[in-house]
């Protein structure tokens, strides 16, 4: 009982840390929900983007081109100064800038070599599609002009042709927008949970393991086994409390998504990961001596593994060699489960079970490490 009380007292000192990380987390969450439409929207959906057009040609072609663009996207006015363009693009107020040079139409008809000019952001898939649409429009439109010699009719026919779209059905998954926020919540939670648990619980364990206190407790009437059991219970309780805080928050915030099979599996995933974090915390408590070292460790493991396993940067963008290293981090298996849950209905149950299993394995190894070293230190 006393052991537990001591735990609580020491953990009060960590309130600041818990609060801070929680605030970072909540800020992140709010950002992601506002940001959702642009970043997390599936690259597949043809959303309309912001385009700025600088028309130096003012021909029937350019006007019709503008009309076509306007029908599919938002046309934004910007200044033509290069720095302003850069500014607008990097602030994402404009995703694509098109410049129609003088005499463009004339040259096209004459068959001369002339191009439209564009500015686009690197790696922008949306820009690629816009250009596809523009190229399509121009080739079809110029063909019709050639045949009909009437710009209005040509536009009408072009627009009609370009309306033809294949029917697409997506199997299995629900609309990606709805599930992405809880998904990102639980992804980011790996970093937060690890940081909070390690930074709060490890210092307590370090203090408990300090020689003087250990000796004092050993001399007391509490047997060593009982002491360890109390410590285990207290550690677990604290971890559980932290876990519950975040879980309850997610249940309230994403109620519709979380009260479902997917939601429950997510929570289970998170619970297992929490145990892993406790394992890390436990081992660290045995090996480390200084409270300040704990924050160093927490941030190196937390940030490092988050980058290498696909928390902050999408998994699909990481090199295979990086992922091979990542497999040795428990976070990797957590993310595996999370990604699989995204495709629920079409998912691979084995992957999920495997993910759980690997994490549990990590937890066992970590606890074992801690126990073995704790014993060997005792005998010194």
């Amino acid at each position, binding site marked *: 009982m006393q052991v537990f009380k001591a735990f609580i007292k020491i953990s009060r000192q960590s309130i600041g840390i818990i609060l801070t990380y929680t605030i970072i987390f909540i800020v992140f969450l709010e*950002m992601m929900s506002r940001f959702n439409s642009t*970043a997390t929207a599936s690259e597949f959906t043809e959303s309309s983007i912001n385009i700025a057009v600088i028309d130096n040609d003012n021909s029937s072609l350019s006007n019709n081109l503008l009309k076509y663009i306007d029908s599919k996207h938002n046309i934004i006015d910007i200044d033509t100064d290069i720095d302003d363009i850069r500014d607008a693009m990097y602030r994402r107020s404009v995703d694509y800038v098109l410049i129609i040079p003088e005499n463009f139409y004339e040259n096209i008809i004459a068959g001369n070599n002339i191009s439209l*000019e564009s500015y686009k952001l*690197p790696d922008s898939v949306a820009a690629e*599609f816009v*250009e*596809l649409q523009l190229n399509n429009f121009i080739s079809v439109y110029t063909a019709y002009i050639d*045949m009909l010699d009437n710009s209005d009719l040509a536009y009408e026919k072009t627009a009609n042709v370009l309306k033809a779209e294949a029917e697409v059905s997506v199997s299995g998954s629900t609309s990606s927008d709805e599930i992405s926020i809880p998904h990102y919540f639980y992804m980011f939670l790996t970093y937060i949970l690890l940081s909070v648990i390690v930074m709060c619980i490890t210092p307590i364990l370090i203090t408990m393991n300090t020689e003087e206190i250990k000796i004092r407790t050993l001399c007391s009437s509490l047997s060593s086994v009982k002491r360890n059991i109390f410590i285990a219970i207290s550690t677990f309780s604290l971890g559980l409390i932290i876990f519950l805080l975040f879980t309850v928050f997610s249940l309230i915030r994403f109620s519709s998504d979380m009260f479902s099979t997917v939601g429950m599996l997510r929570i289970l995933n998170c619970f297992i990961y929490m145990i892993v974090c406790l394992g890390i915390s436990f081992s660290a408590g045995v090996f480390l001596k200084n*409270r300040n070292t704990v924050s160093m460790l927490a941030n190196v493991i937390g940030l490092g593994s988050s980058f290498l396993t696909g928390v902050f940067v999408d998994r699909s963008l990481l090199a295979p060699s990086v992922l091979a290293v990542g497999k040795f981090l428990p976070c990797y298996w957590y993310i595996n489960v999370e990604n699989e849950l995204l495709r629920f209905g079409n998912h691979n149950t084995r992957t999920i079970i495997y993910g759980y299993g690997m994490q549990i394995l990590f937890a066992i190894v970590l606890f074992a490490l801690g126990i073995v070293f704790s014993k060997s230190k005792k005998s010194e």
Partner: protein
Amino acid sequence: MFFHVFKYGLKINFRVKEIVFWAFIFPIILGTCFYAAFSSISTSTESFNTINVAIVLENSDSDIYFKEIADSLSDDENDLPLLNPTYCSSIEAGQLLEKEEVTGIITLSGGIPSLMISGDGINESILKEILNKYLQSVSMLSDIDVNDTASLSKVLSAINNDISYIKELKLTDGNTDVFTNYYYSLIAMCCLMCFSGTMGSMSIKANLSSVGIRKNLSTTRKSVIILGTFMSSYIIQAIASIILIIYLNYVLKVNLGGSLPLITLTALVGSFAGVSTGTFIGALPKLSESLKIALNIIVSLFSCFLSGLMIGDIKYIIQDNLPLLDLLNPAAAISNALYSLNIYDTYNKFIQSISVLTIYSIVLIFTSYLMTRRETYASL
């Protein structure tokens, strides 16, 4: 006197574990993680692979046209065919899709293809575009009189037209890789995490440390002691950030964009901001030493989070929604400065960011000075 205080300040700082770790080691570790995570991006996104697709024919005459197109797209006499089709039944196709052996299923019905996919990546989008193009071609062809050979040839050339009418202009001479932003935030973090400033200012105040009492009673002017301590912290911070830049630029060969001398200048001003922050935190009354160290970590991690250290896009959200925060955040100022060196030709934005940092530093230093110069207290 100044040099004496300065020299010993350096010695003391270099012997404190926390200072050496957070200033020198942690940024290098994180930078290496970034490098590992990002370096493969260009290779994995730009490489193009043939798309596997299942095609379910209706087994009627109307299949022919589409099949011809499909065959031409899978012609492997070219280096890399666009498609790798598997002709099978609907059920088999469904299984292939579930096992993720094909990206999508094209089903023909009355000669009209429709698409079924299970994900939302680039490949799925390409498949859709292929089908769209096919349907648009069909629409164009069905509109003209079969006997009108002139029109027919124009339409056919329009359909087969692979010309891109758009030429991309270079938006900037700098490095347009989106991930450089992470490195900028990392440099910002390196500049801002300043324990030496905190410890230094704590050691000057008599009501915060016994060593401070000695300093108060010495014949060296308080202002000299404050300056000497500050400079020793600043040198450490500046060296740490320069080492990071050298490591990123020459060892990891990350292209930071912009001129190296100006980047270094940014780091020096950034370090100045960092030491001011650290000194300010150290001079605050009523907080314990470990809490101040925690505050150091929290402040720099959080402000770097807001400038995009973990999730790069946060920076843009803040710029759009809370521009004032972006203006006042020192981490954002540092990363904006580096960013503008990369992207812009003119130095307006750069000077603006540097000015913000300088003003921020001066305000904090002045406040710290007011808090530490006091020599007689109401209570110790």
